């Protein structure tokens, strides 16, 4: 399962205006960045998972958290050895390996990364890309050109990955062994595939552009969009709640 795919649904999260969802994800992230307490960062993560679980997205949230924790672990290790404040915690002979300051700052930073990125990642689960871009064009006056670039980029990722696998399979059929455990060897084998991939990708992009132009891409204006994305009371409520959360985090945490 792709962790960035849209999950169809009709929960209270799905029904929000796409712009509200985007803003909410950012505001939640800002609140996490402003927060300076390890326990509160943990609370932010748990709260996010709980909100998602209530909207039927519990598994997705947990899987994402697990993947983000791997990234967090990387940050944790870096911070642990590079921050040298506080008292010595682990020493090897006279060499201080880990300090208390290093440990707390590593914990805080890694949890903060997870807490900040989680809502942004979950945004994709509750918002179809097209809706987000159309809403941004209609309400936030984003030029359609840019919106189109964003949606197209997202749409092409799986196409390119299929293309890549096809090229790889063609090479396998001719006896290239991609199953090797040796990473350097693997990179050596994969690198030459980039050229055909690039060429076929450019061709695809070109035919996509022609197809869009044949259907009047240049004639499109901000008013063209058929679907409307009205703001409702619940959108306002979410905005107020999230702003309050940011203020709370800035002042108290």
């Amino acid at each position, binding site marked *: 399962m792709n962790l960035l795919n849209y999950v169809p649904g009709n929960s209270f999260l799905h029904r929000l205006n796409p712009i509200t969802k985007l803003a909410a994800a950012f505001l939640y992230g800002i609140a996490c960045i402003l927060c300076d307490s390890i326990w509160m960062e943990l609370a932010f993560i748990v709260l996010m998972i709980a909100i998602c679980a209530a909207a039927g997205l519990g598994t997705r949230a947990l899987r994402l958290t697990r993947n983000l924790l791997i990234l967090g672990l990387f940050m944790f290790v870096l911070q642990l050895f590079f921050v040298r404040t506080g008292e010595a915690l682990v020493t090897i002979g006279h060499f201080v390996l880990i300090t208390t300051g290093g440990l707390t700052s590593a914990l805080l930073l890694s949890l903060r990364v997870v807490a900040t990125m989680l809502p942004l990642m979950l945004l994709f689960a509750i918002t179809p890309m097209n809706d987000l871009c159309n809403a941004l064009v209609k309400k936030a006056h984003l030029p359609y050109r840019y919106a189109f670039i964003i949606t197209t980029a997202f749409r092409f990722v799986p196409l390119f990955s299929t293309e890549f696998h096809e090229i790889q399979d063609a090479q396998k059929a001719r006896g290239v062994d991609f199953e090797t455990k040796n990473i350097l060897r693997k990179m050596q084998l994969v690198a030459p595939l980039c050229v055909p991939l690039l060429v076929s990708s450019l061709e*695809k992009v070109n*035919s996509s552009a022609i197809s869009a132009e044949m*259907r009047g891409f*240049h004639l499109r204006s901000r008013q063209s969009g*058929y679907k409307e994305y009205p703001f409702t009371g619940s959108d306002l409520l979410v905005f107020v709640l999230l702003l309050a959360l940011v203020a709370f985090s800035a002042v108290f945490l």
Partner: protein
Amino acid sequence: MIVADHVTFQYADSSDPALKDISLKIGDRDFIGITGTSGAGKSTLAMALNGVIPHEFKGDFYGSVKIDGMDTVEHQVEDFCRKVGEVFQDIDSQMVASVVEDEILFGLENFGVSHEEIGARLEKALDDLGIAELRTREISSLSGGQKQKVAIAAILALEPQILVLDEPTGELDPESSREIFGLLRKLNEEKGITIVIVEQKIKLLCEYVKRLVVLDKGSLVFDDVPGEVITHIDMFKTLGINVPPVAELSHLLRLDGLWNGGITLTVTEAEKMVREVLHDPV
């Protein structure tokens, strides 16, 4: 109506013309098949019929293509792409949206169809192709045949007079291919839409189209009803185009003097012929 008059086109990066002196008239309610080996210029011709060539591809363009009297060189692509809709060869890359509904809305929105009318047009296009139940599906989750129908629906929603399709069944299994041809015939007969279809599957072409155009190395070799074109079986062999086995059978029987009727194009016709030859009525 499209009139191509002595059209020659050479891509900027090529040393040979892709189309050589092609003259072709496409009338109202026509159902035309264009065939030929790969590299014969089929796709180039399809793109020349609605102005994609010479507007989107660099190269030397001679002669003229007129759509309802409008010269494709003098007007912009937007001026006639609603009259002549084109479904391109690569199914995936011609899509612009991730959900079926948005894909069909794209053209309608761009051409400024009034918002009162858009909903009805969307539903009609979905119904015409029999894909109403796919409306909210993700395009990436559809089968090849379904995707092709979505691509056709997206063009059909713009209500073109002429529909040009470049190998619409290229990636489909025989059953879905037949289904697409059936749909096109329905659109042609019931809605009076002119269909121009570029295709390798000569058997399907012979069964469905009213006129068959054969290209070879950029030149137009034949332009006639399929039953007439297919009589030149030896010519097809030199061109390297496979003919339907039933047509070849009737051709061989004719050569041996056992059959003096026409070339058969369908299995039913062939069965009748064989029974006659064997004096074995049903």
